[in-house]
């Protein structure tokens, strides 16, 4: 494995310049560049509070084929969004502490950058000859976890971690997922932090069904959930994992898996989009649309024992689910959920997203609470 040590050796200023190049140089075939962030000064820093940073990732098409992706980033309370052009194979993750982790692969190398949304600048943080399919910043902002595949064969190379300060080389923390005919080839790997930030769920999805490895990064414990009836993950909280069933659409069953014994509870047989949040007592709850219409929602305890109705958005906005389902994310406080047109964060348009405070049902414009 050849890893670039250039970033680790170079001083912050050089790395900052490289950050610009990372994003600006990797847009062959993509539309005209819309924004090239300045290089951030100093070492990468991740804030500690929710700032209302958000992003949305969309494919950029030429004659119906993806030739790149366009990443819109912004902050609640700010007019307009900045748009970055990325390669066809690219991703965004976060936001964490006002930053968004961006990865893009130009067919030769994968490069990761951290965009500081408020300061409108970016740090280049990693570069690799193997394909970094996706990555995530640990909640403490100090460690990067990367999922990699081989550039030629697309073989799974496992999950790797590296300290953001470059003090040690990357190391593998999870081996490649073992092939299993019940799931077929892996289409998408996703990295999701548990509600408390102590565990990282590594989700490997086939065409329809998903397996999840729940990793404790500190002690290295791994718990595998391998049930072909399970689809994509809604979230992990405490000893519970909540996932949709292995459906190709919605509505779809919503299932809670007790990680302590592997038992499953069907929370709802026909749920729409779903997210994890917190109730008035600070307990983790799952909130889901009832059916596919999104007109009403339900709040459920993760064991399905407690349930409560919740009004949908009267103006027809839909629950914004995880990035895998919404193509974007916003940094919001605990106990808040987000509604947007078609369940997505709008880049522009008349319908602005709103936030709902789960404990008291209060609804406010996205801009208002995050400022």
């Amino acid at each position, binding site marked *: 494995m050849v890893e670039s040590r250039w970033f680790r050796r170079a001083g912050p200023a050089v790395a900052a310049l490289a950050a610009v190049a990372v994003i600006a140089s990797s847009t062959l075939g993509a539309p005209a560049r819309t924004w090239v962030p300045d290089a951030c000064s100093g070492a990468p820093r991740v804030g500690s509070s929710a700032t209302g940073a958000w992003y949305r990732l969309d494919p950029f098409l030429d004659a119906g084929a*993806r030739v790149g992706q366009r990443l819109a980033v912004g902050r609640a309370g700010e007019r307009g969004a900045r748009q970055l052009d990325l390669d066809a*194979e690219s991703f965004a993750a976060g936001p964490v502490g006002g930053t968004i982790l961006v990865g893009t692969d130009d067919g030769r190398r994968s490069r990761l950058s951290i965009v500081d949304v408020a300061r409108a600048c970016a740090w280049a943080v990693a570069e690799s000859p193997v394909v970094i399919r996706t990555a995530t910043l640990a909640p403490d902002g100090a460690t990067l976890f990367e999922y990699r595949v081989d550039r030629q064969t697309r073989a799974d190379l496992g999950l790797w971690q590296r300290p953001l300060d470059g003090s040690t080389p990357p190391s593998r923390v999870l081996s490649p997922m073992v092939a299993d005919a019940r799931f*077929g080839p892996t*289409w998408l790997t996703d990295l999701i932090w548990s509600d408390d930030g102590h565990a990282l769920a590594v989700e490997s999805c086939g*065409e*329809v069904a998903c397996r999840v490895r729940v990793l404790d990064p500190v002690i290295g414990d791994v718990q595998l959930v391998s049930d072909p009836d399970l689809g994509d993950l809604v979230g992990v909280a405490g000893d519970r994992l909540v996932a949709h069933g292995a459906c190709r*659409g*919605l*509505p779809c069953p919503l299932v809670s898996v007790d990680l302590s014994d592997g038992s499953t509870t069907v929370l709802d047989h026909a749920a729409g989009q779903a997210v994890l949040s917190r109730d008035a007592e600070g307990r983790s709850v799952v909130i889901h649309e009832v059916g596919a219409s999104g007109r009403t929602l339900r709040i459920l305890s993760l064991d399905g024992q407690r349930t409560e109705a919740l009004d949908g958005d009267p103006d027809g906005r839909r629950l914004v689910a995880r990035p895998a*389902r919404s193509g974007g994310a916003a940094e919001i406080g605990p106990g808040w959920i987000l509604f947007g047109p078609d369940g997505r964060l709008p880049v522009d348009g008349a319908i602005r997203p709103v936030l709902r405070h789960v404990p008291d049902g209060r609804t406010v414009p996205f801009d208002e609470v995050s400022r």
Partner: protein
Amino acid sequence: MITQRRRHRRAASLLLIAAVMAALAGPTTRIAAHSPDPALGGDTFAQDGRLLYDWRSGAAPPAAMRTAINAAAADVGESRASRAATFAYDSNGGNPIGYGTGTCGVNGLACFTRDAPNGFTMWFREQGRVFDWGTLKWCQMYTDPPNGCYDVETIALDELGHVEGLGHHVNYSDDSDYTDAVVQTYSRTKPKEGYNMHVLGVCDIAQLQIRYDIPGASSKYSTCLDVATVMTLSRSAASVVYGGNVTFTATLRVVTDTAYGRLSDNPVSGRAVRLQRRPPGTTTWTNFATMTATSPTGSYVVSARLYSSAEFRAVFSTPTNEGLRGDGSPAVAVTVGSCTTAPCPLSTGR
């Protein structure tokens, strides 16, 4: 072919009820291989309803894909063999089909939402989307489609089947029955068998028939079903004079059973129904007459002059070309008086 059909029938016989139970419980319920597609939870659309779709504003599929999606909509209409809803494009359709990121989640190729009986949405991933395994290729986006591409029309047909309320077919472990359903968990790429199916499979149709009914009483039942029938027989008179005329009326219906959904208690017409007879006190039946379909629907009739007492029954033999199970009616007796007017036969055994 016959062997395969028998195998299908045995499996279907055992598993039809399981499939219907799965319909009630949702797609996480496990069912064994080769029964009708499991049914998704929720309502159905109106029988023979017409669902109009349009292209999502700002996310319309490219022309080649639109053509294939329209073709899939036509495929539903032509191959549904049921009263399932049909699909057609309309610029004001109100059920948007989009192209790009959408809200599919991790699903690979396409996804849908169904809000029966109100409407649906659908998304297709874009050509060139990069997955862990490589780059998505839609066959219709090429003049000469390469191996490894996915057929848009097939995938659209799969998605439209989901919208109707079909879950993923459960195949045999060796997938030998893959082409009995388009609605599959795993999609195949060119050139694997079944990658470009442009009609619904028999096990897709089976569940559509359960949920939406067959088009008419004489329509064929999917061979992925094994639906029990019940035959009854009545006669116009229990006793007649020698040479008297008796009219026999049979009715053929699907057994009343909630597991059959909308097929339950259906009248069955246009089938071959035979009237058989046997002399009293014997056990061997012989064919006596072919009964003719009559009204009301599901009724069959024949009239005959009788010259000896006998027991009669109506028989519907299990057909080889559809998923109905044959039945014979309980026997009915007709007593015929003695011959009193010459010439009389020496024997009235006929």
